[in-house]
């Protein structure tokens, strides 16, 4: 058991994937000598060579488009998109080509890593949460890690999977530490997990908001309310069974994500829970999300992003229904 940051856990996971399979290659902007702007690939080019850890031209459509060809040639490309807001030049390749290839013929074992979300005081295009666009696209799987152990294992599972996977990393939490068990049997990639058991209300979150939800649960416990926090881990496919089970127990559900609420992941969860747990619900499913405005200036981002107070406020509203 090692205690490392999420960033370091990803680095270790990538290292192990490179060791395990000679067909695994990494491509992205500044991932080589610099080790990536967040240093997630630190040291990997030095150890595996610049033909396996590749600094690419500054062209995201090229990164994903050439990865399609590399897959057809037997490689397993793991791509880094430098920031969430820069995935869009590659959107066409992802949505029109990567997502549909298996439906037409055979699959593409591509992993597209995207550091996502806000809270780092950045300038525009560096704080976005585009997961709904990809989850809406049939043919793509979408996962999000939230702690070092998952970061370490999920990246390896995603690379080993034959599905094309969009792999979101909670960039504001890169520096948070936690235990990594490199010997344990990993939890399934596309399974949600109870991050904190509770009995009074369910809070569903993923990525950077899991920490926020856990903090809210700690605060709620001081006031005598036990929140059950579920870390979704996989957004497409959604693993709803643990959510249904929890809601049937608590009768209350709050969904938290940074992305704006409109037509988002929270809406999908609310719809499914309403369909499956209607008679268990004591209150409507509530969402705590980013607002439906473009990501705002950094000085007000803490008001845009769901925080402990807004989660507790939603829990209160659920109880006050």
């Amino acid at each position, binding site marked *: 058991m090692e205690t490392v940051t999420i960033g370091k856990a990803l680095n270790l996971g990538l290292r192990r994937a490179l060791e395990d399979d000679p067909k695994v290659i990494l491509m992205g*902007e*500044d991932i*080589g*000598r*610099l*080790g990536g*702007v967040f240093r997630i690939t630190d040291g990997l080019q030095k150890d595996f060579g610049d033909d396996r850890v590749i*600094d*690419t*031209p*500054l*062209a995201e*459509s*090229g990164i994903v488009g050439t990865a399609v060809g590399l897959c057809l040639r037997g490689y397993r490309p793991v791509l880094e998109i430098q920031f969430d*807001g*820069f995935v*869009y*030049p590659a959107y066409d390749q992802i949505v029109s080509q990567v997502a549909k290839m298996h439906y037409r013929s055979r699959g593409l074992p591509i992993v597209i890593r995207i550091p996502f979300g806000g809270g780092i*005081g950045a*300038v*525009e*295009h560096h704080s976005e949460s585009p997961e709904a666009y990809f989850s809406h696209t049939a043919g793509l799987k979408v996962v999000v890690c939230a702690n070092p152990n998952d970061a370490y294992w999920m990246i390896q599972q995603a690379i080993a999977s034959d599905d094309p996977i969009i792999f979101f990393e909670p960039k504001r939490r890169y520096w948070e530490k936690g235990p990594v068990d490199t010997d344990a049997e990993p939890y399934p990639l596309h399974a949600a997990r109870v991050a904190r058991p509770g009995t009074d209300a369910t809070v569903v979150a993923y990525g950077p908001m899991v920490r926020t939800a856990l903090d809210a649960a700690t605060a709620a416990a001081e006031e005598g309310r036990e929140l059950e926090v579920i870390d979704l881990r996989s957004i497409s496919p959604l693993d709803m069974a643990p959510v249904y089970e929890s809601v049937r127990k608590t009768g209350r559900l709050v969904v938290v994500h940074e992305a704006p609420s*409109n037509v988002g992941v929270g809406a999908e969860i609310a719809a499914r829970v309403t369909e499956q747990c209607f008679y268990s619900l004591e209150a409507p499913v509530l969402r705590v999300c980013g*607002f*439906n*405005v*473009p990501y*705002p*200036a*950094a*000085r*007000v*981002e803490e*008001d*845009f992003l769901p925080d402990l*107070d*807004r989660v507790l*406020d939603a829990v209160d509203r659920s109880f006050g229904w």
Partner: protein
Amino acid sequence: MRPQDMAFPTYREHGVLYCRGIDPIMPLGLFRGVDQGGWDPIEMKFAMYTIVIGAQTLHATGYAMGIAMDGKVGTEDGEAVIAYFGDGASSQGDVNEAFVWSSVFHAPVVFFCQNNQYAISEPLERQTRVPLYQRAHGFGFPGVRVDGNDVLASYAVTRAALDQARVGQGPTLIEAYTYRMGAHTTSDDPTRYRIASEVEAWQAKDPILRVRRFLEQQGLADQSFFGEVDEQARVEAVKLRERVLELPDPAPVTMFDHVFPNGSPEIDEEREQFTAYLSSFAGEVH
């Protein structure tokens, strides 16, 4: 640039912005995170800073197509457009599409590539095997390389290209060959990817020092002039720093403003709910 000309910057053209008459505090609001840096691009003839690499080259091309549609090209006092971008940007699809479009539509646009030889950590060789200016020929318009650390040469080449565009000669690609002296951003660490001697060699080619030597040698300016300029720059810099530190944080509810020209009932509702939520903390410091 003439007053009627239009510029499309990256995030690096603070000097051009200054010359367009925009208060230099404006872009600093963007980087400070207090606003979106929103000047009026039409009034100031200077488009918004563009952080998504290369996107502005297409905007510049479209604006230039509009100039041609309006018949404002083909005369000495015609209009022209300049689009700035970096060596890394030259790899983007958008930039290459801008070359195609401007060529096909014979648009009055000058592509000014500030080749500072690095895209964050990646050296020029990651973007191109030929000198960038040579790319223009394949798209059907002239390309020229200029010593980007030679102020007068850069001025002359840019002016000539803009004048050609305005009289109806179509696009030009200028590759201004220079070097990024500092880190890419405050979180960058250039010692990981380049050697000190390279930086030192370029230090000796400092364009400001060079223009100063030139003026001295030609007897066009004396010490008192340079003293005045230095002092003026110092005072401006101090003033600007103070103003940046004094930039007030925006009120949180302002994030709901300015999303649409026609507004949106959904956003109005969110603003109301958020305002009510904030006032539920009345008395507490939020």
